[in-house]
């Protein structure tokens, strides 16, 4: 039997529509879970609406981190945020990584799984950085197909975040916001809008962050990141080791006006302060949203 004759002819198959997926829920105002705060969170149950956990920190055989994660999940909604999906890499996908991610998701039952629009390495190497891509049709086709593959593998829609970038490629054919919009439209992925990263990239490349913000489709953004950075004078480095700066708070107000009610969190990765200090920032995200959004828009 000619097996190939039984397969659909790709030349006549209709283009694949992105799998429609239910809009992720609004979770409120959250914080990135960090080991320095484990004890305080488990002992005092601070009033934080939800936690984002770094997926790779829990892709482990066992031990204390996973036990703590289980206890956090019993009490708080959790989303999983990865740094090594390398969705834009031209290397073959790492299916072992994807299986580990899927296994962790089975345990955590996250509200969603996110990672970054970037690559982390090729030729078997991992540079453990969120590396930039050229915004070309070729790159877009590649990333759309990878997102579709990963979504099929995981059985759920992905949420992808814009990264801070320090360089732009001279062969880019579109803007970053055009690339992200088209990626979301064609693949069905949702967007994690990192407001600090928009600010950093806009400064580094000399464009208006509001242009980026207004170029993103309002109905695809399901999460905001708020974070700090290090200003080097001629460029900004996305270090996540400082409090959120006032310019980024201003951009948050603009983002609320454009995107409306969006799950928001404070992301601190280094120079981790006491939990109380971060709770002040979490509360500020809530207070600003209550002030900016029309009455009743935060409920539900």
């Amino acid at each position, binding site marked *: 039997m000619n097996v190939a004759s039984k397969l659909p002819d790709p030349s006549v198959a209709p283009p694949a529509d992105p799998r429609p997926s239910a809009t992720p829920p609004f979770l409120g105002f959250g914080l990135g879970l960090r080991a320095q705060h484990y004890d305080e969170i488990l002992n005092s149950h601070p009033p934080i609406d939800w936690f984002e956990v770094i997926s790779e920190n829990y892709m482990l*055989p066992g031990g204390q981190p996973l036990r703590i994660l289980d206890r956090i999940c019993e009490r708080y909604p959790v989303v999983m945020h990865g740094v090594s999906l390398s969705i834009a890499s031209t290397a073959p996908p790492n299916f072992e990584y994807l299986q580990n991610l899927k296994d962790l998701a089975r345990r955590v039952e996250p509200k969603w799984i996110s990672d970054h629009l970037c690559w982390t390495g*090729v030729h078997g190497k991992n540079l453990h950085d969120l590396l930039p891509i050229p915004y070309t049709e070729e790159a877009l086709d590649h990333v759309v197909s990878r997102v579709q593959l990963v979504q099929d593998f995981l059985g759920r829609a992905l949420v992808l975040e814009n990264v801070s970038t320090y360089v732009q*490629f001279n062969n880019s054919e579109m803007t970053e916001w055009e690339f992200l919009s088209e990626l979301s439209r064609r693949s069905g992925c949702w967007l994690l809008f990192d407001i600090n990263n928009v600010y950093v990239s806009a400064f580094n490349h000399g464009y208006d962050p509001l242009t980026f913000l207004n170029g993103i489709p309002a109905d695809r953004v399901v999460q905001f990141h708020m974070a700090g950075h290090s200003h080097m004078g001629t460029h900004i480095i996305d270090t996540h080791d400082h409090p959120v700066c006032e310019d980024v708070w201003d951009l948050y107000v603009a983002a609320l006006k454009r995107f409306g009610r969006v799950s928001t969190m404070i992301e601190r990765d280094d120079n981790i302060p006491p939990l109380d200090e971060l709770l002040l920032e979490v509360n500020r995200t809530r207070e600003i949203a209550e002030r900016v959004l029309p009455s009743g828009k935060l409920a539900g």
Partner: protein
Amino acid sequence: MSDFARQQSEFQRGILAGDDAILDEILDSPRENRATLFGVYRYAYGSRLVEAMRNDHELLHLYLGDETFDEMGHAYVKARPSEHPNLRWFSQGLPEFFKTADPYCNHPILSDLAALEKSLNDAFDATEAPVLTLEDMAGFAPEVWNDLMFKPHPSACRLDVRTNAAAIWMALKNDETPPDATSLDEPSRLLIWRQDTTPMFRELTAEEAMMWDEAANGIPFGVLCEMLATYDDPDGAAARGAGYLHGWITSGALTSVSAGE
């Protein structure tokens, strides 16, 4: 190879090998030249990985000091680029690196200290499993004891070191001045395991280490006692074996027992 793939290869080579070819494909910013901007990625690569090594090897870092540790760390990063998506596993090759890379191979304490820290890290997040208790042992009639076989907890491992790494580790952990590194005539035989959530280690005698190693290989208790009899007083072998076993069980180093076939 697609142009996108070629560009990623160039970009990666620019970071790993310092090749500047990628600079022809990126733009200056309004305020900064492209070499400086690309340098952010170059700098971040090495510093992030060395930082991960500092976290995994806190006491080795303390032992070597910032400057020497970072110099060693960058040499390791260059010799062994990461091939795993999880930074947790990046430092795994450090003990082996110390054994082979000059000048570190001239200081065997480094490999031993790194191996001890690695074993403790591995115990910390090793696979979960039940812990064998004394109550579990109560159900076995005396006549089946000779056939009992014991399975180590997944977090448990043995490590032989040829230096006083254990004493140095302990001093560093207690904020004391570590003793000078010395080589040992007889290896120091260590058992590493996780007690609840805390990684532990202790030194074993040659006899206890032999019994642990053979028990982990599935040798039944009766045979283990015969083996112990060749090490010391044959009449006390069963009592010594029971004593070692009691210690392993009460410290949580075993996961199960079976009566064999």
